[in-house]
């Protein structure tokens, strides 16, 4: 026994810090971040347990919270500077809520088993009518989660259905996305999902969902949910016969290739729009929301904010459509939340509410459940505001003028690229790495944009930017030095 213990000791290899690789460390920026974005815990009075899974804002300003435990709370006073909000239990006894929308006095709740319209008919403040809007999918394994969207302008709702046990498709339409029309018709619209973590519209109104790392997905990603599309995991092809509007099942992709080559063979295959490099940018990204706060949340209007369950962090993302294909970038934003984040919602005052649990899977944050509100302090951090692609390279926008002396120098832009193997194995390495050198830089007169030229842009690659040496007018470095752009397409030269 003793000798065995000694063996363990000898097999350590020595580096100075103890790290928890499997969960992933934070970026180490929390102390600086809190100057710009403060996290306030929303007290949850005992004995309530609120494992938030979905949020909706009501016209009267209350926030509805659907929970993993199947409760639906209505919460008022969440925006108070020092919140001690009131939680009213509106409905209970539902089955894991991961989707919540509100329209015309009714909640549309996505539970594991169905999409339900919930109303209070007698006006006593408690739900008393639960109408099944759609149960057009199979449910035969506890891991078959269902995530619901908000309404689109046509009044449709969308539901993203995880695989059976996250590997198989044993019940109807597991691994598919469904559209539920205002008339209550359930229409399968896409196959090939693996383990969605959220579904909604991006900043341009296109339908997106969160995909998790695993088979056929080497990292978590934001994907455009294209009607008629195949989202990458072929295990769910067995249900095409139940989806006549989808036509025939696609050609099966070949495991071990690259998504850029496979998408030429598999015409329905939709490539990921924004890759979140594993561990560096979350490990299980979750619900997302678009910032429409009219500046009240700071300089990132019309951008996507997205949580991560494992690392208890919030990130940003931006998307753009190039040659008809969606792609974009993700950026670190705020770390140090107390629990695994399952969903986010902007409050009426323009703060960002997050909530979730830490049970079941590894989570960095130490609380079994929590609601936390992130407020902008009014100070603008020096950040990469967004990355976008140009015919010759990339445009980098900043939240504050960059010091042009440094920013003019091409050697300050450290770029690295990689792509993933597209395969049926779990997760995957980053491969085909390159380190392109920037040929030229043009900094705008106001210092808010740098346009860089690179010798070659590689479709299918994720471009990692490290701008750690750039400073603003006061000599401050970027709050987050890195950002990641996923290239599917290159715009034509102008």
């Amino acid at each position, binding site marked *: 026994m003793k000798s065995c213990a000694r063996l363990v000791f000898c097999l350590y290899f020595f580096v100075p810090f*103890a790290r928890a690789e499997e969960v992933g460390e934070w970026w180490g920026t929390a102390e600086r971040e809190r100057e710009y974005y403060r996290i306030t815990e929303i007290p949850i009075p005992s004995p309530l347990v609120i494992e938030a899974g979905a949020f909706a804002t009501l016209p009267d300003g209350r926030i509805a919270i659907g929970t993993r435990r199947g409760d639906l709370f209505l919460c008022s006073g969440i925006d108070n500077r020092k919140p001690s909000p009131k939680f009213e239990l509106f409905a209970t006894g539902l089955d894991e809520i991961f989707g919540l929308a509100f329209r015309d006095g009714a909640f549309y709740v996505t539970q594991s088993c169905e999409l339900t319209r919930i109303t209070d008919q007698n006006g006593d403040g408690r739900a008393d*009518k639960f109408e099944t809007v759609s149960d057009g999918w199979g449910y035969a394994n506890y891991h078959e*989660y269902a995530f619901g969207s908000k309404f689109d302008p046509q009044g449709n709702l969308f539901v993203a259905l995880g695989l059976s046990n996250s590997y198989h498709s044993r019940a109807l339409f597991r691994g598919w996305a469904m559209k539920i029309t205002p008339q209550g018709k359930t229409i399968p619209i896409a196959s090939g999902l693996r383990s969605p973590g959220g579904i909604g519209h991006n900043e341009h109104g296109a339908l997106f969902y969160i995909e998790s790392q695993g088979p056929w997905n080497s990292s978590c990603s934001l994907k455009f949910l294209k009607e008629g599309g195949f989202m990458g995991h072929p295990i769910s092809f067995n249900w095409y016969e139940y989806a006549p509007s989808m036509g025939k099942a696609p050609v099966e992709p070949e495991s071990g290739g690259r998504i850029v080559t496979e998408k030429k063979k598999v015409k329905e295959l939709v490539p990921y729009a924004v890759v979140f490099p594993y561990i560096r940018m979350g490990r299980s990204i979750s619900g997302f929301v678009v910032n429409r706060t009219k500046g009240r949340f700071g300089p990132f209007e019309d951008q996507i904010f997205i949580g991560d369950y494992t690392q208890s962090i919030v990130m940003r993302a931006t998307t753009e459509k190039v040659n008809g294909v969606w792609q974009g970038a993700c950026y670190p934003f705020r770390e140090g939340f107390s629990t695994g984040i399952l969903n986010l919602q902007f409050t009426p005052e323009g703060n960002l509410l997050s909530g979730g649990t830490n049970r079941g899977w590894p989570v960095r944050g130490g609380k079994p459940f929590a609601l936390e509100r992130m407020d902008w302090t009014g100070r603008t951090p020096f950040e990469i505001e967004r990355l976008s692609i140009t015919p010759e390279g990339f445009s980098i926008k900043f939240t504050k003028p960059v010091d042009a002396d440094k920013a003019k120098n091409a050697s300050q832009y450290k770029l690295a690229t990689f792509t993933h193997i597209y395969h049926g194995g779990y997760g995957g390495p980053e491969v085909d790495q390159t380190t392109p050198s920037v040929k030229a830089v043009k900094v705008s007169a106001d210092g808010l944009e740098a346009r860089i030229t690179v010798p070659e842009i590689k479709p299918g690659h994720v471009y990692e930017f490290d701008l750690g040496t750039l400073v603003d007018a006061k000599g401050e470095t970027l709050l987050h030095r890195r950002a990641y752009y996923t290239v599917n397409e290159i715009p034509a030269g102008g």
Partner: protein
Amino acid sequence: MKRTALPLALAFIGLGIDSHAVPSIAGLDENSSLALAEAGEALMGELQCANCHAGGAEYLFARKSGPDLSEVGQRVSSVFLMKFLANPSDAHKGTRMPDMLQALPVKEREGAVKALTAFLKSLGHEDEALPAWEVGDGARGKALFEEVGCLACHGDSLDGPSRKPVESLSTLAHLSGKYSASSLAQFLHEPLEVRKSGRMPDFHLSSREAADLAQFLVQGRPQVAKAEQAEPQKVRLGKRLFVQLNCVACHSLKDLPPPRPSLPFKDLRRDRGCLSGQKGNFPFYDLSSFQRKAIGECLEEGHSPSSPEKSVKQALAAFNCLACHERGGQGGPSPWLSLRMKSSQEGLGDHGRIPPSLDLVGAKLKPLWMRKVMFDGQRARPYAHTRMPSFGEDNLGLLPALFREVDEIEEVEFPEVGRKKRGEVRSAGHKLVGDKGLNCVACHLFNGKSAGGFEGLDLLASYDRIEPSWFYRFMRSPRSLRPGIVMPSYWPPGREGGEADVNASIQIRAIWHYLSYGQGAPTPSGVGNPGTNLEVGELARVYRGRSRIAGYRGISVGFPEGIHYAFNAETGTLTGLWKGDFVSVGWGGQGAGNFNPRSRAVQLAQDVSFQLSEAAPKAWPLRPETTKEKPVNPNPLYPKNLGYRFRGYSLDDLGIPTFSYAFGKIQMEDSSRPESSGDVHLLRRRLSITSPYAAKVLFRALVGKIEAGPDRIFATPEVRLTIPRAAFELRDFPAPGEGRELIVSLILDEGVSEFSFDYEILR
């Protein structure tokens, strides 16, 4: 009578020989750990000397402002304002506000007080009194006052002379004349909004607690505080005086000119002006002899060079941290205060109730955690009733970094575990923490869960809180770092490099590695993960979730009468019945809320139970089966192809659900509830069926070893079912001899037809 005499009496006891009401600055008195000049420097910061006298050295924690007066009219009564302006230290013993009017002749002085009061009362929104605050409970407020930490600075000044006050007392007796319960509650709820310098910290009171505490402090004799509009002339005069007297130096207000600087720091002398102890044309500070001496020393010696050590000491003194925390042999609660610090985990000893020592805190806590504790209300020891208040990041934001600079312990290397070895090391740590190892969980929570013993510091928070080197040294010898702690030494001291030493280092590192997985760390042995029992209250309770008894789209319905049933919404079938307690639900781990009846249940068939007669095949259509070998549902549309659609349910005033579903154009309303007659307790199921045409529906009411009795009664060994007057067929199922199925023919008229079925549990 007693109450009015009390503050003065206490002031005498608390402050020793000084007979006047000197500014009370708790941590900066004769007992201060600072050198005299350093204390003087801090005192000048506390008294905000720099607001008028420029050029002093940098005291990192100087108060930059007095209370924010922009809404003072709403907050403070005019009676108090008048008294206070006329003689600040008389109206509020120990105030740091100097007497600004002492040089004026009595007549003028009265006029100035009135004008200033009129001006101050005009500040705030006249028409909107502060939003009404709930009315607190004084008894609860008293308990809070004694528990959360108020006593550390405010002694027991409100609670009779029999209890000995703490050494440096600041009285609160003026509060009832100053605030209304409501305006005080709002102040206590967010003190840093008004007193931005953080000397009155934020105790993270909920709005309710603030109301309770305020109610206690005003003792039922509150003033009405409300902004008032006096004669505009008087307000204008007051405003002019406010500027003339340079009040703006400490109380900046919108639309007022900036303060005028007074003599620069280098020209100040210990026996002149504010420090002379004389009255004259300057603010009058009724300083104690110590305060005067310390400030004089500082003026003469000049500032000592700033150093992190000095800044840490000054901060701990100025913010009175040492009233609760010990550091370097200084401070810590007085014996009187210590006795009043309580814990809900008494078994954890003094370390479970007294705020932790700050010795080496900069080497112990991770900086981010320290910030969360100091500024965000994060609590590692929720069982200790004394709360760590927040002094405001703007005021003490520098302190975590200073602690880090000052405090050092020898670094212990924590080698990273190679990928292949991680599982093994983690599982070693897992074993050690659990009840089959060192049983850390006997005294510590793990992710909020207890092993049934004490509920000490949550082990899972260790990684976020603590620096690994501290963790290592503390584990090796808890008492060497925290004398008197109940935490035992698990590893005997051994020769360095000897076998015991090596084993200890392997084990401690394994525990750290295990804890570093955060919540990903598997729950240690001994910590339970029990199902949650759902109780039924006065109303019926509906809970949805997958269940062995009702399938994945299962719905359980519990009744206060203690009889419960389960409904499979996928097939529209009542699938189980039981008595006693309702259900337990799996909400631990990945548990998605599956439910289980808490007593043995009668399991009924789960297949679709209705069919339109004209479409019915000879054999009843059974739900598709999946097996381990054939796990894919071969007929996923089974219920829908039989015409079944689940429509949902509604709840009546008793919370009892009525399920709605359809077969083709036929709508079914299905509701069950307990009925009792004599000793018989049964569940009565009512079907209300709406059909657009006359039709016949077959209902497969029961399956199993059915015996037919008289009066339309059918029984299996577990359940007795009474059916309405209707044709029925009792036929073999699935094969002759093995069991039977009861098929009841329900004849529907056009419109609504009603049927009733009684289920009685026989066990």
